[in-house]
Each structure stands twice: as structure tokens, then as C-alpha cells.
């Protein structure tokens, strides 16, 4: 499953970068994530609850930040498993400054599903990914805005 998207934020790239690299913030804005625990340099243990339409599952696994090019790009490597199936994804996140206060965040990657999700959830999962990314952008936007205020 291809994961792509772009969103424009009214903040500088460095500011967004610092938000994304902060464990607490990340746990707060990532949809479904209930716990994010740092277990090593750029390595996290993550627990997520996904509840969307017909699908509801508790996921747990790892989240690694690789290939950091501050403040331009990094790769998120995610491995989550659950009783309803497993997700493994590599997503490259790029921040492109448009101006001092404007940054385009784009992501591009691929998620591989296995198990029940892969077999029966294709149609559902592409929508889940879309919605999760929308929620993430919204939450990040709010996070950035709240700090402004």
C-alpha cells in the first residue's frame, strides 16, 4: 500500500522538526498512539489503538527514526503487530521550507500488511491510512498553533 501526502504548515521547518522529534508531542499527535516509549537512540516502543469503522485493534511494536537529515528529512520505520494483522512501513518524511513561516511536509512510503488485515481489509486499510494521515496533520497543526498562542 502506497502512502503519500503533502500538507502545508504555517511554521518553520526547524520548529516542525523539533516537534516531530519530541517523544511526548509525537505520542500526543499520532492518531491512535496511546503510548510511546523511548527504548534507545531514535528507537521507540509504541502501543496504538486503531478503531475505525469495522476495524478495531490493539497494535504494539517498534518505531524507529532512521536516516536523519536535520531539519530536512528522516525515515520512519514502523513495525506494528496485532491479532488482526500486522503492518510494516517505511515512510520518508521531508520538510521543505517555503518561507520562514511556511513549510511543506510531505511523506512518501509504503506499508505492507499481513494476516487478516491484508486478506480482508484492503479497501478499508487505504482509507484508514488516508484518515490517519489527515488526523495527524490536523493534530500537528493544532500543536503548532497552540504553542503560538
Amino acid at each position, binding site marked *: 500500500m502506497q502512502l503519500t501526502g503533502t500538507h502545508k504548515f504555517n511554521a518553520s521547518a526547524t520548529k516542525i522538526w523539533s516537534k516531530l522529534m519530541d517523544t511526548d508531542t509525537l505520542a500526543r499527535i499520532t492518531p491512535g498512539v496511546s503510548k510511546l516509549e523511548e527504548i534507545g537512540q531514535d528507537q521507540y516502543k509504541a502501543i496504538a489503538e486503531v478503531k*475505525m*469503522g*469495522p*476495524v*478495531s*485493534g490493539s497494535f504494539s511494536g517498534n518505531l524507529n527514526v532512521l536516516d536523519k537529515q536535520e531539519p530536512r528529512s528522516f525515515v520512519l520505520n514502523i513495525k506494528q503487530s496485532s*491479532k*488482526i494483522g500486522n503492518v510494516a512501513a517505511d515512510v520518508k518524511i521531508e520538510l521543505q521550507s517555503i518561507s520562514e513561516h511556511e513549510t511543506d511536509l510531505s511523506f512518501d512510503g509504503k506499508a505492507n500488511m499481513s494476516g*487478516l488485515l491484508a486478506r*480482508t*481489509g*484492503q*479497501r478499508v486499510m*487505504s*482509507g*484508514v491510512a*488516508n*484518515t490517519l494521515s*489527515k488526523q495527524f496533520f490536523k493534530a500537528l497543526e493544532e500543536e503548532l498553533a497552540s504553542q503560538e498562542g
Partner: protein
Amino acid sequence: MIPNSFDYHRATSVDEAIRLMAQHGMDAKLLAGGHSLLPAMKLRLNQPGVLVDIGRLAELRYIKKEGDSLVIGAGATHDDIANSEVARNTLSMLSEAANLIGDVQVRNKGTLGGSLAHADPAADWPAVMIAAHAHIELRGPNGSRTVAADDFFTGFYMTALAEDEIITAIRIPAPPKGTHSSYQKFMQPASRFAIVGCAASVTKDGGVCQKVSVALTGLSDTAFRASNVEAALTGKKLTKENIAAAAQAAGEGVMAMGDHFASEEYRLHLAKVFAKRALMAAAE
């Protein structure tokens, strides 16, 4: 094939259902026809701890005229609507859509309210309700409220319905004289959900489109109003050419879904084709 264990409560009234939902919170799910929920539970894609059954509430199962409006109880089945003369006479797309949902057995049990609350991105009713300018009546612990169908579907399987609210009825205003409607659907051949479905109603006066309402489903993460198609046709003569030209705007700017049955590009193409077909049928 075997769902997880859960507690089951059959509500004897809407108010009791609301109380039960409030009592059990996030772990509870409403069970109406069960034709979206139970298959997911059997696969264990979903494992609620409590089911509150509202499937037998007679107070939710009706189709009637109220003043100028058509009011459909949330518990009316697809089959009830398919066979309702008053629904057909109000907007024929209601019975057309009802007849295209699932199969006979599913239509016998599945309900309008259940389908709207579930908000499957490929379900038929959301598009029809948007095109019909329907208002969805909700009731929760703090009383009742009404949400326009246009504002009800907020995302992928997401609606304006709060966790502790129940859809009670759907109110459809009587369309102006000279209005005809149609629902046209390109089916996913296995599930028979919509790959693309288009609901259209056209108010015609002397061959000119006075008013038009168009909504699409299946294309994206939620059903939506095709405002640009409406704008392109309003005030125009209802010729084949004008309709075809207006339908070209269907799906414009939409991030379409894709799967092995239909890619994003193909879905966007079908949106145009089915917008045209629905409009043609409604304008006839």
C-alpha cells in the same frame, strides 16, 4: 466465524438504548440490522464488549409523510424503503438505491440508520441522503439535534454522531415540483458495494435545470456533494451535451481511493460516467 464474547442488551426503547450506551461507554456498540457489525465481529476485526440491540424497536421503524417532508425511521430496513410507495413518490432514487444494496437477505435486515451510522465510504445511502438534502435526527443523553446530511459524513467511517447518540430518523424535504431523481451505481463485483455511486436529483422547468443536487460515493473516504457539477448544470438547458459537460466536473480535486478492482484514475473516470448517467436518468 465465532465472534468474541460480549454482553448483550436488548433495548426496549430509544431512551433505554441511550442509557445503556452511556453506561457502557466506548466498549459498547449499537446493533441494528447487524449486517456491517456482525461480519466484522465474526472475523474479529472488531471485538466490542457490549452490544445494545435496537433492531426490534418499533418506534424506529416507519416511513411516513410529515407535512411536506418524508420521514424515515432509522430502523426502517432497506427492503422497507425499496417497497415504500411514499418513498418512491418522493424521490425515486430512494427505492432505486435501496434495491441496489447488498442482496435480498441483506436488504431484509440491514437498516437505513445502521448504514448511515456505519458510514462505509462505499455505501449507497450517504450519497442519496446528501443528494436528497436529508436531515439526520440524532438523540443522546442531552436531547435531540439535527444534522444536515452534508455535514454528517465527516470522514472514513466517521460521522457527526457522538458515541452516546443514536440516529432516530431521517427527514427528507419534499422536492420542488418537476423534480426527478436517480441513483446509478457501478458495483464492486464481489462485495457489491459501490465502486462509484452517484445520486442525482434534477428540478426541471421547461427543459431548463432549475435546481440540481448531486452526490457521489465510493470514490473517496466519504460520500460528498459534487458542488462543481451542480454549478455547471444549474440554469442550463438539460441537453445531453450540457449534462455530459457538467458531469466532467465530477470527482474534480478529489483524492480517490484505489484497490485491485479500481485504481484512483479509473474511479475518477467512473465518477464522470456515473454522474452523467444519474443526471441523464433524472433529467428524463
